[in-house]
């Protein structure tokens, strides 16, 4: 009897001890905390040139600024990024295309007055994108799966490059407002949501960011003008600390079909 009591006491003590341990672990969980929102301004030029029936050249060039250190709400106080993305697009059919190419980003110093920072560092990437398009009652819906292989470093002098892989999915709806479908001279609304995941040796959190973007735009011949507000939310390098940004985006897209512009070249000397 006394042996059983002893065993029960021992078991209860072990159970209590383990339970207590769990309680301690739970209390060590970081509390999620959000930083105050910051502001940015992204201005983009998008080019898409049709080189052949199946192949396009795609290019994006962005000029991005962010708020100054003293004022979180001024949108343009500091230089942020020069962002250049390009690639060859292969059109499998009207609903599916794949793009492959390089990206080159200039990341500017977070503090222009601090000599411990390089004014700008380069971030090269290789990227590929799988784009599915569908139309539902005149609304064009794009499913964009984008994968980026990044070589990125901090702006601290002497900082080392780290390699990461980024996985992005974006769903966008192009909703025509004054026409039954997207065509020339169409006012449109384009809400989208994009989620970013990132993996790498130094990544703390797999989730990188979520972006909610609502654009309004207008198509005019080869041009598309569009812009709007984007809100981003995601973790920082400090566990449990989340940031969010309000970004004004202004964009122009220009498309051109080179197929009709390829002029035959005549030989300037006769062939033997």
């Amino acid at each position: 009897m006394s042996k059983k009591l002893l065993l029960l006491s021992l078991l209860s003590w072990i159970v209590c001890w383990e339970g207590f341990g769990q309680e301690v672990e739970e209390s060590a969980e970081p509390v999620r905390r959000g930083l105050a929102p910051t502001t940015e301004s992204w201005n983009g030029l998008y080019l898409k040139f049709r080189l052949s029936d199946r192949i396009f050249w795609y290019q994006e060039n962005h000029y991005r600024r962010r708020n100054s250190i003293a004022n979180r709400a001024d949108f343009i106080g500091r230089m942020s990024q020069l962002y250049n993305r390009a690639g060859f697009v292969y059109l499998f059919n009207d609903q599916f295309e794949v793009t492959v190419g390089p990206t080159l980003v200039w990341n500017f110093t977070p503090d222009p007055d601090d000599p411990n920072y390089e004014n700008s560092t380069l971030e090269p990437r290789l990227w590929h994108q799988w784009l599915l398009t569908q139309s539902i009652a005149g609304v064009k819906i794009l499913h964009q799966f984008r994968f980026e292989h990044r070589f990125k470093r901090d702006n601290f002098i002497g900082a080392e490059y780290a390699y990461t892989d980024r996985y992005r999915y974006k769903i966008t709806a192009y909703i025509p407002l004054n026409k039954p479908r997207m065509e020339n001279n169409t006012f449109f609304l384009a809400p989208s949501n994009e989620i970013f995941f990132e993996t790498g040796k130094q990544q703390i959190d797999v989730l990188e960011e979520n972006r909610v973007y609502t654009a309004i735009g207008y198509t005019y011949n080869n041009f598309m003008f569009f812009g709007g507000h984007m809100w981003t939310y995601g973790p920082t390098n400090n566990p449990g600390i989340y940031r969010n940004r309000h970004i004004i985006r202004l964009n122009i897209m220009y498309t051109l079909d080179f197929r009709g512009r390829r002029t035959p070249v005549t030989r300037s000397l006769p062939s033997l």
Partner: protein
Amino acid sequence: MVMNIKIKYLFLGSVMWILLSHNAFGQYQEQIRLHYSNEYGLGNNLFGFNLVGEYFLIDNLSFAPSATILFPATGKASAFNFNARYYFTEEDIQLYGLAGYGIFRRRYEHNPELNFDNRGSINLGAGVLYKIYDEIGLNFEIKVQPQNNGEVWLKLGMLYYIN
């Protein structure tokens, strides 16, 4: 005997001339091509993105200026090249030799004694274009820069035949 050797050389020379002449009409004056490539320096172990514009001044002979942004572990590096290419063959596989001048620029990040280095060198090399479609091709190139520590550059990329 001496006469026979001379005749042999003449014959070989004629054959070479005919072959080269026959194959040398694939690239025509005023043609333009745009290239995107990835470039790698074997000696300095630098990788970079490269853009080339190519314009044919006369048949077979083009001027091909290019710019490369390289990615060292720290600091920055870039290269600018001004090469002439002479094409030997036409059709789907186009072989060329190149000569020109290159500038290699390197900015060091934490080296107070040498912050910036700028070297010029002649370029010598060869390459090949392979036409995948009427408009799109692949390009492989190798070139040497004797005055830049004998640096050897390898380049692999795609090009668009504008006309």
